[in-house]
């Protein structure tokens, strides 16, 4: 008893979700409001980047969640392939649109931020490029889910795609890092401290770090809430489907 796999039962999962969804969504809202308001109104400008540093409160959490969502999909895909728990496959399906939204936010805020900093909307900076590739992976993954009628076949194929894609995504990351050396350097130097968020060399950065932390927690909670909600939606759809199939037979 008390095993985590109990929640692999779709009905049990739905009931549990219904209990936890509201508090998680509340927590997400509170953290996001506090973090963003704190960051936007009550933090000083950076001495180098001026007011643009405020973009960090959106850009960094979105980028983190874009990667974490894919990682979560990888784990749930593996669970589906090994243990055949339907909730796991549906959770992966539910996470993909959230991940792609986060990737788009990271890309757009990155481009807007890059405009005054680098003097161009788009630089083929390794990090930006990697996110663009991640975006393509998300698109392919979602398109494959949409293209297949049979839900179990779709779950199997997308799971394998997710695993193979993860390997290639990591490969691409190294390839892109290597590839950009030859073109131009230093594009990401400015953001090296910003990305890790824990850059303690500069004492100022703590001023930015705490609201950033609240924002990251807010994004994580938002992601969890949306995954729970969307997974439950998928379960409801499947249950409807199953009941209709049974109705037709009767």
């Amino acid at each position, binding site marked *: 008893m008390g095993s985590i796999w109990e929640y692999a039962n779709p009905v049990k999962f739905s009931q549990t979700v219904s209990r936890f969804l509201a508090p998680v969504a509340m927590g997400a809202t509170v953290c996001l409001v506090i973090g963003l308001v704190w960051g936007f109104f009550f933090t000083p400008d950076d001495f180098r980047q001026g*007011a643009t540093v405020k973009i960090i409160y959106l850009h960094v959490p979105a980028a983190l969640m874009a990667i974490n969502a894919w990682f979560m999909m990888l784990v749930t895909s593996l669970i589906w392939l090994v243990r055949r728990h339907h909730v796991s496959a549906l959770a992966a399906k539910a996470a993909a649109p959230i991940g792609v*939204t986060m990737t788009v936010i990271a890309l757009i805020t990155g481009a807007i931020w890059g405009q005054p900093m680098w003097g161009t909307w788009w630089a083929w900076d390794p990090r930006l490029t990697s996110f663009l590739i991640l975006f393509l992976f998300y698109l392919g993954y979602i398109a494959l889910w949409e293209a297949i009628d049979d839900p179990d076949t779709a779950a199997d194929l997308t799971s394998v795609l997710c695993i193979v894609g993860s390997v290639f995504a990591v490969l691409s990351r190294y390839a892109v890092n290597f590839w950009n050396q030859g073109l131009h350097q230093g594009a990401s130097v400015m953001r090296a401290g910003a990305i890790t968020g824990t850059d303690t060399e500069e004492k100022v950065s703590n001023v930015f770090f705490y609201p950033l932390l609240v924002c990251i927690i807010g994004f994580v909670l938002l992601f969890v809430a949306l995954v729970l909600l969307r997974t439950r939606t998928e379960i409801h759809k499947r249950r409807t489907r199953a009941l209709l199939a049974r109705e037709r037979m009767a």
Partner: protein
Amino acid sequence: MMPDLGKYAETVLSSYAVSILLIVALVWWSVRAARKAKLALEDVEARRK
């Protein structure tokens, strides 16, 4: 109340606008889909009884 964003006002404000818009759209879409799926399911379950 509004902080002085200086020459970067457009940059910062547009970042916030786009991001918040995307998040709100995602949440709205998810909630609507959830509601729809729930109604469809309740419909079928009601017929079963």
